[in-house]
């Protein structure tokens, strides 16, 4: 009986797992293999020559590669911290709502569901120069007399990009944290109130420590996600001006599909993969004890 069940289990799981192995795991190995070759589809006469670690050495000595890594890390750091802080504030505010919570939740889910490409285009429209909405508001309210030409300025271009990402993702982070907040025993707050603890003290002594696991999961998931940023930057700046806002995923995209350098592009892919994989492992370890290893009973 037990042995039959085991066999049945594997039979049922096999189709899905083999699909994953064939089209997700296989390609990763293939990319690692491909990254050791000189394979330039624009120059088919060169063939496909084994060059060892040459592609990696080229990447490591390429300033555009390091620039792209720097942009990705900076984008991840700024957007994820903003999203966590604002998301926590939004979650705490919504958690104590008594009426209309369903409506607010629908509103919060909307940005997450809007295609990232659309989000990028919407915010590009708002920041258009000279007469976009943002400039009208900034000039009209007297905050800035002379706003920058957002998408032509290597630094200012990050503002709309990060705003777009924060707009799309903060409500989602808030929803994750809200689920964590709702697991906290209400009686803890009542006891604290009887002891005369202030609202701020309740937040730091009860909410934050008990929310730490959810915060950590949100942090790591968002970081992994921010590390692969592509869509929003592609439609907003295309990585420009020049390569001033080019993240690593876009540099790889351009090596592969614009320059058709498959060996070199594969080396870049492997670098991204290893970096995100390490982050993902951390994420899974964090969740592990609570969801994964849960016994089947």
């Amino acid at each position, binding site marked *: 009986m037990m042995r039959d069940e085991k066999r049945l289990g594997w039979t049922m799981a096999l189709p899905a797992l083999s699909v994953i192995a064939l089209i997700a795991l296989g390609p990763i190995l293939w990319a690692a293999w491909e990254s050791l070759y000189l394979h330039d589809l624009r120059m088919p006469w060169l063939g496909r020559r084994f060059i060892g670690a040459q592609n990696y050495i080229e990447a490591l000595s390429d300033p555009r590669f390091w620039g792209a890594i720097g942009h990705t890390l900076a984008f991840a750091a700024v957007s994820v911290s903003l999203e966590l802080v604002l998301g926590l504030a939004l979650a705490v505010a919504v958690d104590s709502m008594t009426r209309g919570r369903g409506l607010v939740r629908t509103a*919060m889910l909307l940005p997450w569901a809007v295609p990232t490409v659309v989000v990028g285009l919407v915010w590009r429209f708002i920041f258009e120069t000279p007469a976009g909405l943002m400039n009208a508001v900034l000039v009209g309210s007297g905050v800035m007399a002379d706003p920058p030409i957002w998408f032509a300025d290597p630094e200012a271009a990050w503002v709309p990009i990060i705003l777009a990402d924060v707009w799309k993702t903060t409500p989602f982070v808030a929803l994750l944290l809200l689920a964590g907040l709702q697991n906290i025993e209400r009686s803890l707050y009542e006891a604290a109130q009887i002891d005369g603890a202030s609202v701020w003290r309740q937040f730091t002594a009860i909410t934050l420590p008990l929310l730490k696991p959810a915060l950590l999961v949100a942090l790591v998931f968002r970081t992994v996600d921010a590390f692969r940023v592509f869509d929003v930057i592609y439609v907003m700046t295309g990585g420009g001006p020049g390569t001033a806002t080019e993240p690593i995923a876009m540099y790889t995209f351009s090596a592969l599909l614009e320059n058709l350098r498959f060996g070199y592009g594969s080396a870049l892919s492997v670098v991204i993969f290893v970096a995100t994989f390490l982050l993902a492992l951390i994420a899974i370890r964090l969740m592990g004890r609570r969801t994964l290893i849960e016994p089947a009973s």
Partner: protein
Amino acid sequence: MTGGIWGIGRRLAIAVMVSAILFPIYWVAVASFTPESQLFGQVDLVPTRLVFDHYRAVFSERALGTAVWNSLIVAGATTLLCVPIGALCAYALARLPFPGRTLVLTSVLAISMFPQISIVSPLYLLLRELRLIDTYAGLVLPYLTFAMPLTIWLLVGFFRQLPRELEEAALMDGASRLRTLWTIVLPLSWPGLTTTAILTFLYCWNEFLFALCFTLGPDRYTVPVAIALFRGQYQVPWGQILAGALVATLPVAMLVFLAQRRIVAGLTSGAVKG
């Protein structure tokens, strides 16, 4: 936390944040009904006249209808493939004695976090070899890489939440595993299966990178690729882009309104609940 300053501050904060979320969508909706020449002039907050020019243009000149059709086919086919196959796998992982369960689940989760760009190069070479570049199958196959782990992960969560007693009673009565699955578990699982289908569809509908890499022209562009590549001869055709953006958002917004509660439950069960 009682009323007073905190209560007012809280309500104010919620109001500000909800407007910050909704206003850009509203603004774009209004702008998409505004004539091109007035887009960067005085756009009224409450429009007095709706102009449908941009919508006519995106469907007649830009072939957005084709893109919508392509997106529906690709997202629909991926969902229809993933949910049944993923459900079998998820049930086995959730309920059957399964040696190596933790390892399999960990790998599935890790794969769902793959950066898509890192498998573009091998997938491109593979699809080129199979002559599948710029075909529907050439999008469905790559989409399985993120959709299959996603469905498995979500459904394992749903199956674990089902009460075990019913299945055990049926098994006691001598029904086979598969029969139990078909007659007891499946009818109970419709909410989980539909939520998973909705989420998978959403992810496929919104996907951009693979569709950009593996299609070559408007005949096979999906909606996100089509609107990202709208170009004007002299200037950015903003009116059409915004109309296209609204068309791309409408289906997902409808799904969110219909299934808000379930989507939130599905998304948060894997990540937060222990």
